[in-house]
Structure formats: structure tokens, C-alpha cells
């Protein structure tokens, strides 16, 4: 062995150990399938500036409504824009919306849910507020917010996040209510552990698994909602190539140029499928008990 190789040996071993700790995940076929689909879409989104064939916003009226061909893989729309390039740039919007909404609603919901579930006196107040938020239809809220603040990616993310929060709060609160009565939490109380520490040390680690799973479902539904909002013209600005926007523009030409709707539709369906299957797989691997309940 060369001395240079020897130097890397401990690093290699460490890496192997690290990779090995994910074995339980790779053993589950749902995780593998969903993860691969998502990885494919994420790579596409990341490499969109390299993978694209024609500038997504440039119009070529002479080539409008062309079917899929060697020059335009997914065909062109009514302005002669390349559907393939627009679709792969659309990946970015969908993933950004999906992940931002998931992260935001899970983090905000987690904090509110922990507090509401653990502190009895706050519970009733917080939950009534959450009931109130749940009564607001998500799409109407989004349209209202866009009317007030103007169309932008941030507004869309915020508009989808707000109605998702109560769902996360309910989940977290429900689990915390159960965990609060667990003898190990009561032991911690009698050991003099302070409330914030009890929440962080004893309760939080035991809700992470269901929370990650919930996160994947939130992510999938946020992607669909974003597409719906864009389709309705209440989403990201129309000049941005998002799947919803592409489909909205293509809907009048559906009979003569179905590819405009078909390809972004397929991407959307595959991405959502990937996220949901990944969520199911994670549910089974992270918490086998939950798998039986759901």
C-alpha cells in the first residue's frame, strides 16, 4: 500500500461507518424508490442551468406549438418557448415551495404544539386559535394575500404554510399529551429537570420520527397546492416557469398541443409520488409501531 493511501484509510473507515448507519434506511424499498425519484428531480432542478437546451423564457414564434422533436424534446408552447427547458426550471419552484413549506410549518407547528401539549393552561387558548386558522380555506387565503401583497414566491410559500401549521400543531400536541404522562417524563420532573429541558431532552426526540413523516406529506401537498395556485393565476408570477404556470398557459391548447400540459403534469405527479412513497417508507423504518396504526 502506498503511504498516500494509508493516510486516507481512517477517513475511509469513518465514511463506511457513517454510510453503514443508514443501512436501515436503504433496506426499505419504499425509501429507496421514493428517495431515487426525489433525487432525480432534485438533481434536475440543481443542474437545470446545464441541462436546458433553449433559454426557457426566449420566444420563437416561428416554432410555436411544435410537437416533441429532436430540437424541442417536450415540444413548444404557443409562444414557441421550449417546454423541456421550462419544465426542468419548474422543478426548482416546486422543490423550493415544497421544502420551504415543510420546514416552516413543521418548525412553527412543532414549537406551538410542544407548548400547547405540555402546558395545560395554554392548551385551550392555542387550540381554539388553531381551529380558527383551520377554518380559513387555503386557496382563498392565498388569493387574498396575493391580492394584498402581489404575486411572488415568498407570498405563495407563506400562503401555503399558514393553513398547514394547525395540522402539525394537532399532531405534535396529540403526541405530547401522551408522552407527558409517560413515567420517564414524570421521573424527570422528580429529578428536578426544568420544563424546557424536559421538552428538549425527553419529549422532542420521541416525536421526531412522526414529525419527519408528516413533513414529507406537507411537502407533497404544498407542491400540489402551488401548482393549483399557479394554475388559477394566484401563484408565482406568470413569467416564472413553474409547472402550474406552464399547465395553465397550455390548457387552452390542450386539444392541439397536449404536450404542454402532459410533461409538467408527469413531473409533478412523479415528484409528489416520490415524496409520498418516501414518507411511507420512513414511517415504516423510523417507527414500526406507527406503521401498524396508520
Amino acid at each position, binding site marked *: 500500500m502506498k503511504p498516500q493511501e494509508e493516510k486516507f484509510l481512517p477517513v475511509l473507515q469513518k465514511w463506511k461507518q457513517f454510510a453503514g448507519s443508514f443501512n436501515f434506511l436503504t433496506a426499505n424499498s419504499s425509501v429507496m424508490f421514493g428517495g431515487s425519484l426525489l433525487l432525480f428531480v432534485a438533481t434536475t432542478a440543481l443542474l437545470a442551468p446545464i441541462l436546458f437546451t433553449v433559454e426557457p423564457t426566449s420566444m420563437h414564434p416561428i416554432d410555436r406549438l411544435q410537437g416533441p422533436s429532436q430540437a424541442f424534446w417536450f415540444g413548444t408552447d404557443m409562444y414557441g418557448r421550449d417546454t423541456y427547458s421550462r419544465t426542468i426550471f419548474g422543478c426548482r419552484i416546486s422543490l423550493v415551495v415544497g421544502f420551504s413549506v415543510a420546514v416552516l410549518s413543521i418548525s412553527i407547528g412543532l414549537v406551538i404544539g410542544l407548548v400547547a401539549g405540555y402546558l395545560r393552561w395554554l392548551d385551550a387558548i392555542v387550540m381554539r386559535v388553531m381551529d380558527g386558522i383551520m377554518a380559513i380555506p387555503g386557496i382563498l387565503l392565498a388569493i387574498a394575500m396575493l391580492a394584498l401583497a402581489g404575486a411572488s414566491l415568498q407570498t405563495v410559500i407563506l400562503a401555503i404554510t399558514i393553513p398547514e401549521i394547525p395540522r402539525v400543531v394537532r399532531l405534535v400536541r396529540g403526541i405530547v399529551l401522551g408522552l407527558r404522562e409517560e*413515567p*420517564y417524563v*414524570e*421521573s424527570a420532573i*422528580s*429529578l*428536578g429537570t426544568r420544563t424546557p429541558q424536559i421538552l428538549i431532552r*425527553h419529549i422532542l*426526540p*420521541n416525536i421526531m420520527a412522526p414529525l419527519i413523516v408528516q413533513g414529507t406529506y406537507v411537502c407533497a401537498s404544498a407542491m400540489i397546492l402551488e401548482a393549483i395556485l399557479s394554475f388559477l393565476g394566484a401563484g408565482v408570477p406568470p413569467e416564472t416557469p413553474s409547472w402550474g404556470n406552464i399547465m395553465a398557459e397550455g390548457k387552452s391548447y390542450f386539444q392541439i398541443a397536449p404536450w404542454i400540459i402532459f410533461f409538467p403534469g408527469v413531473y409533478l405527479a412523479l415528484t409528489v409520488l416520490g415524496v409520498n412513497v418516501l414518507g411511507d417508507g420512513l414511517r415504516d423504518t423510523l417507527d414500526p409501531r406507527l406503521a401498524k396504526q396508520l
Partner: protein
Amino acid sequence: MTTYSMKSVDPVLVIDGLTVSLPPSAERVHAVEQVSLEVLPREILCVVGESGSGKSVTAHSVMGLLPEDQLKTVAGTISVLGESIIDASPQRLRQLRGNRMSMIFQEPMTALNPVMSLGRQIEEALTEHTNMRSRDRLERVYSLMDAVNLPDKESLFHSYPHEISGGQRQRVMIAMALALEPALLIADEPTTALDVTTQQQILNLIKGIQNDRDTAVLFITHDFGVVAEIAHRVIVMKDGSIVESGNTADVLGNPRNDYTKMLIQSVPSLVPKTRSSKLTKPIAISTRSLEKTYQTKSFFGRSRTVKAANDISFDIRRGETLGIVGESGSGKSTVARCIARLVDPSAGEIRINDTNIAEISQRAYRPLRKHIQIVFQDPYRSLNPRQTVGRAIAEGPMNYGLGRVEATARASNLLSLVGLDPKALSRYPHQFSGGQRQRICIARALAMEPDVLVADEPVSALDVSVQAQVLELLKDLQEKFELAILFITHDLRVAAQVSDNIAVMYQGKIVEHGSTEAIFQNPKHEYTKRLFNAAPGKEWSFS
């Protein structure tokens, strides 16, 4: 107890060389191995063993109720009235269940359908298996309810499981099991979830029914008291194999196998030990007129007040154990939780070191918390599954300012003190058995160097041999640290062995309080007498 001339009649159940395999990941290869037994008509055969001994698997194989993806019958035969169970088709098996054999389970609440009236549930077997007319069925249901001594049949017929008591639920289960007059009744720990007085009634009921109807009974239990009470013959199982079998009197009185001997010796005696007086020791904790009331407030309906504990007064001296005995719902756990300030008492005093801790706020109480520590019943839920054992034990001292290094050193000392390897500090709770976990919980409580240890049913979830070890450990630690122990238990045998004094609780009140010897020799209160009478196997001294 009746004696039986063996082989004079054909057995109802014959198991021959039964071997059931476990999934490859399990600790051992076979759940049960080479088990052979027979149950004659009018006979109660008790299968006794600790958890994991394979007794329930044996019972479930007879009913054809094994989860086939995990447990496979690899050898042996089971026949009920001459018909093989293992070769029976699923349809035939369904007919046999109920008609020839039926089963009652440990937890009557989960075994009954919560949204179906009790009468309909008893009737269901008749509807499924017979062509009786509905009027005849109804009469049959009423006669079954009579047979299991259920009161007020008409109204109970239309009641739902949550509206009746645990004992009544188990009676309904037995009525269901008897509906088709099976030749074989399998009872899988049918009284384990019940209070001792209810247990006695159910045991008498099973004995009576079995006698009247010539039923053969296969009775699964872990409790030697119950065995002494009900069995004609006993089979002792360990790790899936039969280690000893014979008539009840022989096995209990003169066990030959070492394991059986050990098990029987582990059963605590009902005769209290004489213990040295601790009257000279200082009082560690005292309560005066302690009270806890629960109020259920509802938005529209009337609010209800329940007195869970009422007028509780006692003293515990250093090095002394006060046993609180009582049945479920008697308020004994409420007292424990009040004293550990896990719930706030409604009235009264709790004094430690001349401070009344009942009235001070949680914030003011925090510095005093370390004086009182608690150990819970369920060792599987008492430890955070995602926290290492070392971290769990060190948590308390670290809360009060001890450095991580010192706290870990203390944790390691405590682990060896409770009989575990100090190297286990970095392991997680699921890597330990129930008894080991309870030791860890005790170590965690001791890490705080408390004056008072509240032990809320600390050995109820443990097997009898492990129970004996944990009780021994508690005794040693008490002597070493002069701990005052408040020991909550429903088990009179355990109470007799560990307590200096006993308080008997009934409906939230202490109805009798005195030295253990005095109470066991001469119980005065009606309820105490009833409780003592119901203790299973009281004629047997075991150890």
C-alpha cells in the same frame, strides 16, 4: 381437591411433541420445544411459568391462533377430542373454536367489542354456530348470564363494555366462551388484570362451571397462588420446555426440579418477617390530613368532584418501610404522586425536615425535590428510549449542579451498586430486561441521594424470580442509606415481606393502619379481612 385416577377416561386435549419455531432474529430457535400434555374432562391443568416460557404460545397453538408469519409449528400434534388441530382447514378450525374449545383472555376490555352491546356479543356465537330461533337464543343468553352470576340481566344485556367493571367484563367473556358448551376451556391469565377480591370470585366461578359442566380447563398463569387455588395438575415451563409436571400438591409441596424449587422459593410468604423496631429513628416524612380531589369541569354539563385520597396521615421513620396496600382505584397511587409532588395535593400537610411541602409552589419546591424520589411500576416506560442509561442516571445530579464527569462517575458507581456492569452506561434501555431496567430506575432515584423513596408497585410487572431479586436489592439499599420507603403494592405477599407498617386503603381512605405483624395476624376492618381472605393460595406457605 379431587384426586384423579389417570387414564380412566379419554383426554379432551392431547398435545404431543409440539415444537413451534421463532423467527430467525429471535433469541432462541423454538418458542416451545417438545411439549406434550393431556387434559382430562373435569380437570384443571395449570401451565405456569415466567414471561417468555412459551406458555401462551402453547395455548394459542391449541386454538390455532398463532401468527403464522412469525411462529410456525414445525413438529408435533395437537388433538381436541381426537381431531387434529394442526391439519384442520381454516373453516373447520372456525367451527371447532367455540364448539369444542374456547378461550378467555387476560384483558377483558380489549377482548370485547366496545361498540356492541354485551348481550349481542354473548349471542354472537349462537348466531354463528347454531340454527336456534331468536327467542331460544335470548333465553340461552340469559341462562348463561345466570351461570356466570351476572346481576340485572335485562339491563346488562343492553349495556356496553365500558359501562361495567373489570370483573363483570371477565364474566361476560366467560359466558361467551361457554355459550356453545365447549369441551375445553383455555384461560390465558384470566385474572391477572383483576383485583384480588374479584380474582377470587372469577377463580371460584371457573371452578364451579368446570365442575358442573365437565369442562376440561387449560389454565395459563404466572402466579403460584392461583395455581394453589385452582389446579388439579401443574406443568412448569421454562424457555419453551416442560421442566416439571405432576399433581398440584406434589409440585408445590415437594418440587423436584431446581428451577421449580427456585420459583416456589421466590414466592413471598404471607407471614410477615419480624423486623427490628425503628421507633428511635427520626421521622423522615409525615403527612397530616392529606387530601386530593379531582374536579371534572365540563363546559355545559355539571362538574363532578372525586375524592381520590382523603384524610391521609402517616409518619415514616428513617430506614422504615410503610406499605400501602389496596385494590385499583383505592387511591394509593394518588398518595404516591402527591408525596412526590407530581400532582398538587388539595389540602393537608406533607412534612420533610420541618418544611410543609404540600403548600409551597413548584418553584420553591424544586430545591427540595431531591429528598423524595420515585420508582414506577412499568420498567419499560420508566426510561426514555432515546437516552442512554448513563445519561438517565446522571441527569438528576447534573440538574443540581454536579459536573458531567462527577455525575457519570456517580452513575457508574450506582450501576455496580444495583448489580449491573458499569460498562452498561452507554447502552440504551431496550438492551436490558425488565428486571435490569427496574434496577436502573432505582439507581436513577438513588443518584439524588434521597431521604424518602416512593416505590409505586415497583415489582408488579416483574417475574417472580426477578421480583425476589429486586426486593432483596431494595432491602439492602434501605439498610445502607437508611432510606424511608413508601411502598405501594396490591400484592399482600410482597407487602408482608417488605413493610414495617401497613396502611390499608379503600375508596381513598386509610381504613386500617398499624404494624405489619399486627395487621396480618389480626385484621380488624371488614375490608382488610376480605382482602386477606381473597389472597390466592393463602393455605400454602411456599418458601
